[in-house]
């Protein structure tokens, strides 16, 4: 008998511990805490029942009965609230009625002389279990208030059956059967057996704790089953997400190819038309030399256009290690500005340069740095094109922040659409015609290959601000010994 109750208590304790762990791990879902509460109360109940079965002293039995009512009440309340929280089903008013009945019952339990069960303990019977162990059975005058909690048990049956039915209708049949079925079955067992023992019709020790543990086991099984299924579906979800990613990438590649084909086709088509017209010009007698020269100039220009496109594309996909050296950032800014100053001036664009107080050196490819800055400057120049003169400004700022150098290029243009910022750095993303949108993709590739980051925002006065960072080169570090 000690073994039996010990086993029951042990199982309850183990399940309780498991639920507690899950509760802590699963960011505190209330259901697991309720399950743990139910398990621990059932464990206590097992110990109380064991003690009851072994005591022949009416005073001690009364104390134990009082305690037992608390543990039974706690177990049942945890259970119904758990069912409600887990299934999100069941009628709230029944739940509150059950809770209320037990609150009254437990109050009575405290103030009645012989607990909620009896008004008086008349005898303690000693009985022999069929395997030859002696246990004790309390006999007394039934307390009418006990019917309150019996009513509560009846309501629990209704509540759980109703919640189970709702769950079944919702299509969650597995949960409905394990929850509804097990609770109803074991409450019926305990609910019939225990009152019969209490009023002395049958004489066995009470086994409420055992039924609780059985319910608990069924509920735990259901939780484990669902966790397992959730994990399986998470896995499936992850797989389908990867699949979508792959598709999107191949789709992007398709767009990339079609965009490239279009952009290469334009100069090729122009070259062909011009070449054919030159052949006609030369076929005249005398040949139309001046017109032919003009057409040939166009051919050369279009050939360069196509070849620039190829160069850009190569820069984008090029993964070779380029020569890196210690580069002074403001020096590169000045060199780059010198390349475009004249063009910017003809467009009446003013450039402000904000320099840091000290010289900042990074380990980088000078040519690639220039390429990034050129791209950003061209974009900025294009953005301010058509703006009123005071807004036709570009501001380049270089500064240091901890181990990083950052360079920002801000313009007075119309700014950026927030939903487009993320895609801007993808290749072939362009809002303009005659531009295949590789500039920012190239910038990102270069900056990231240097260990930095590039980002864009709409600035305080609404223009666009592009900022990139590069790791500051440590002092005394020679170019080839430094990791990018």
């Amino acid at each position: 008998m000690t073994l039996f109750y010990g086993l029951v208590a042990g199982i309850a304790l183990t399940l309780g511990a498991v639920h507690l762990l899950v509760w802590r791990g699963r960011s505190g879902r209330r259901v697991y805490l309720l399950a743990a509460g139910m398990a621990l109360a059932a464990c206590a109940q097992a110990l109380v029942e064991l003690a009851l079965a072994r005591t022949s002293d009416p005073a001690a039995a009364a104390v134990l009965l009082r305690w037992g009512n608390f543990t039974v009440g706690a177990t049942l309340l945890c259970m119904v609230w758990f069912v409600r929280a887990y299934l999100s089903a069941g009628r709230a008013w029944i739940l509150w009625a059950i809770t209320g009945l037990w609150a009254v019952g437990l109050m009575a339990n405290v103030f009645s002389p012989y607990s909620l069960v009896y008004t008086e303990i008349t005898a303690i019977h000693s009985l022999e279990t069929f395997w030859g162990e002696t246990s004790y059975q309390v006999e007394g005058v039934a307390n009418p208030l006990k019917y309150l909690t019996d009513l509560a048990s009846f309501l629990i049956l209704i509540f759980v059956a109703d919640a189970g039915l709702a769950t079944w209708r919702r299509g969650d049949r597995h949960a409905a059967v394990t929850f509804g079925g097990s609770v109803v079955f074991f409450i019926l067992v305990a609910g019939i057996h225990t009152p019969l023992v209490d009023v002395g019709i049958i004489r066995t020790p009470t086994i409420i704790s055992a039924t609780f543990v059985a319910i608990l086991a069924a509920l735990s099984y259901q939780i484990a089953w669902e966790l397992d299924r959730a994990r399986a579906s998470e896995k499936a979800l992850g797989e389908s997400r990867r699949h979508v990613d792959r598709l999107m990438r191949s789709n992007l590649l398709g767009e990339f190819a079609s965009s490239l084909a279009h952009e290469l086709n334009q100069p090729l088509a122009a070259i062909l038309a011009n070449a054919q017209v030159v052949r006609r010009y030369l076929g005249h007698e005398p040949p139309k030399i001046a017109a032919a020269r003009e057409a040939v100039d166009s051919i050369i220009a279009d050939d360069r256009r196509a070849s620039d496109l190829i160069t850009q594309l190569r820069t984008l996909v090029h993964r070779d290690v380029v020569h890196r050296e210690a580069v002074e950032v403001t020096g590169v800014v000045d060199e780059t500005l010198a390349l475009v100053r004249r063009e910017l001036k003809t467009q009446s664009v003013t450039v402000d340069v904000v320099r840091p107080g000290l010289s900042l050196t990074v380990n980088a490819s000078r040519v690639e740095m220039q390429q990034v800055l050129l791209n950003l400057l061209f974009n900025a120049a294009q953005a301010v094109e058509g703006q009123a003169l005071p807004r036709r400004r570009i501001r380049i700022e270089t500064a240091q922040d901890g181990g990083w150098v950052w360079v920002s290029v801000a313009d007075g243009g119309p700014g950026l659409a927030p939903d487009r910022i993320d895609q801007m750095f993808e290749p072939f993303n362009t809002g303009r015609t005659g531009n295949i949108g590789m500039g920012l993709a190239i910038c990102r590739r270069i900056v990231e290959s240097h260990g930095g980051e590039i980002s864009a925002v709409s600035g305080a006065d609404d223009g666009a601000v592009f900022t990139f960072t590069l790791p500051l080169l440590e002092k005394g570090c020679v170019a080839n010994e430094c990791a990018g």
Partner: protein
Amino acid sequence: MNAPDKGRVVIVEDDRPLREALVRLLLEARYQVEAFGSAEAYLVAAAPEDCHCLLLDVRLPGLSGQALQQRLNEEDAPRFIVFMTGHGTIPAAVEAIRKGAVDYLTKPVEEDALFKAVDTALDHCRMEKALNADRRAARTLLARLTPRENDVLGLVVSGLPNKAIADQLGIALPTVKIHRGRVMEKMQADSLVDLVNRAEQAGFQPDSENT
């Protein structure tokens, strides 16, 4: 140098270097050329009654080539369109032709293919124009008939001999002959076949009560 002009070509192509090259080539081939950078500019500037071949890029900023075709069809002002595209697909080509395009060329376009398509478009345009002129003329002639002559024309066209016409209209045979002679004269027809053709061109519908 002043060779006869082979017809008018209107180019709509957003890529300036390509547009200029096409203008150059078509001018050299003695077409009359006009060029626009967008479908919108074309809609504003082009005179629809002029017979011209519309050499239209599929991919345009703003209104696309297909959208322009759609719009012209909806406005019941269809043009003779030769599409040009960088990456044509068969479904797109079929769709364009189904909606009345003359040809669907892939860039880069060979001059022979280009001229052939443009000439076909211009031929279609001229034929349509001539057909329209004939129709207008036939309608004018038809309008000059009296109601009685109209009745006689209806019965002649439906193949009845003079005697049957006289019976049906309840008039004398000589009277029918006189009416018939006037109809032939007014419709400027030399023969019965000629008369039937002209009546058809004019969209002639005999009055139902007399047939």
